[in-house]
């Protein structure tokens, strides 16, 4: 705010005649690749290079039916929201639980040497195991169904949050602790006034990665005999040879994951206005 008072800043803030163009350009650039892909898809299916994949138009029609119904009226008509909600509840539920577990653990491991010595080697050993490798074990432990999917999402989101929190807490500039103590902020008070805000950018990176991974894992998790969920839709589509259903499920996951990432980024930009690396 104060900075906007400088004359140069004022000039830069002035709405130039071509500002709407400047704003549209990135959008236009971003749409080039998807547009080309769509054209290729259209050409490939219209010319019957492949018969395994429906045309973009057919897929769009299925999508409308999947979301609103009224075209085919089969078992999947107008059910998109049910599957989306089922997946979202697992993604955000698992993610939320992972956050509740990973944040305090990360703060503990990052701050307390004893906790680091006890827990860090264990987590470092567990970390390289891909989430998908947990699938059989989680099916054995939690059975076929929603709980298994939930557990996988939890595992997927847990490690990025944990590791980035540890990293953020361990890498606070030591000068800041000296500055705080010479200003009269000592001991545990430093945790809230120095450690937490200093680690926030790193913690946010962890949350963003964790949420991305949660969306990534949900499909695998829902392939284990869950009746509802976008992963289940994709699996059903494959079993029933309904490729358009597979593609519709993929598109919805992509869009939902994208929107949820944008929301996290927007929150981050707001909370981390102060950070030169997080431009708001």
């Amino acid at each position: 705010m104060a900075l906007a008072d400088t004359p140069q800043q004022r000039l830069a803030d002035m709405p130039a005649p071509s500002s709407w163009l400047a704003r549209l350009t990135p959008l236009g650039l971003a749409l080039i690749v998807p547009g080309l892909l769509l054209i290729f898809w259209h050409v490939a299916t219209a010319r019957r290079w492949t018969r395994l994949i429906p045309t973009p138009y057919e897929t769009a029609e299925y999508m409308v039916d999947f979301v609103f119904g009224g075209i085919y009226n089969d078992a999947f008509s107008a059910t998109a929201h049910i599957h989306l909600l089922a997946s979202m509840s697992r993604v955000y539920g698992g993610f939320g639980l992972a956050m509740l577990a990973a944040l305090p653990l990360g703060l503990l491991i990052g701050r307390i040497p004893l906790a680091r010595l006890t827990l860090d080697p264990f987590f470092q050993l567990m970390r390289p195991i891909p989430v998908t490798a947990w699938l059989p074990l989680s099916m054995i432990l939690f059975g076929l169904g929603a709980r298994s999917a939930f557990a996988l999402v939890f595992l997927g989101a847990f490690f990025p949050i944990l590791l980035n929190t540890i990293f953020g807490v361990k890498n606070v500039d030591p000068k800041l602790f000296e500055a705080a103590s010479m200003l009269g902020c000592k001991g545990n008070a430093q945790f809230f006034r120095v450690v937490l805000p200093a680690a926030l950018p790193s913690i946010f990176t962890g949350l963003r990665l964790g949420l991305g991974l949660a969306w990534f894992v949900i499909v695998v998790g829902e392939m284990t005999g869950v009746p509802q969920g976008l992963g289940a839709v994709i699996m059903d589509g494959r079993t029933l040879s309904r490729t358009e259903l597979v593609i519709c499920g993929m598109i919805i996951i992509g869009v939902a994951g994208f929107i949820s990432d944008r929301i996290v980024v927007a929150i981050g930009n707001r909370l981390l206005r102060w950070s030169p690396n997080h431009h708001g």
Partner: protein
Amino acid sequence: MAEPTIPIIEIRNVTKTFQLQGQTIHALKDASLSIRKGEFVTLIGASGCGKSTLLRIIAGFEKPSEGEALMWGKPISEPEPQRGMVFQDYALFPWLSVRDNIAFGPTSRGVPKVQARDTVERFVDMVGLGRFADAYPHQLSGGMRQRVAIARVLANDAEVVLMDEPFGALDAMTRERLQEELLDIWARTNLTVVFVTHAIEEAIFLADRVVVMTPGPGRIESDNPMLLARPRDIASPEFNDIRRALSGKLHSHHGKKAA
């Protein structure tokens, strides 16, 4: 003030050793120095002669290996708001605005909100950052950041301000302005300043006393009162004479080493 004989800061025969890769490094050997309230003392010397170590001992960040460091006759055991440190690389809290950085000390010490706000505004104005009070450190120039760092310790009622090459990273013009502003603040308040620098001119321009240190092991070579009237003219012949004399003292240890 009440007892003019007691120095505000006293260093008595302080030795500081560090263990580094199995070697013992004498950062400071048998250093003694006493500083009276209101004095402006500069520490000057070659790299590695223990200037920062001495300053950090006064601040309470380090403990002497031998000897003692006292403030008003009492041993310094930990960092305290009475002794504010201004670091070369600012060490501002990047997540706090200029105003909140300056308010950090008072709020940490539980100063009532209304009173803290008045104090903060006063010091924001004192260092001329009124227009930038809501800006974050990364939006400021180096000179402005160092002003915030100075205001931050002043707003916290520091009696002694410890400065470790505070203007070392700034361009010449900004440095000169900040030197004058610092002298101005010092003249108007009852501050005691201990100021580490590499630059002889800066040391002479600012100080009541220039303490020359020599390395290997770090020792206090001499303590030189500066009697030139203020404001001082860097271009004057008197200034030049002092510079030459100090320069000789600074480099005297090279001869000793060779012998």
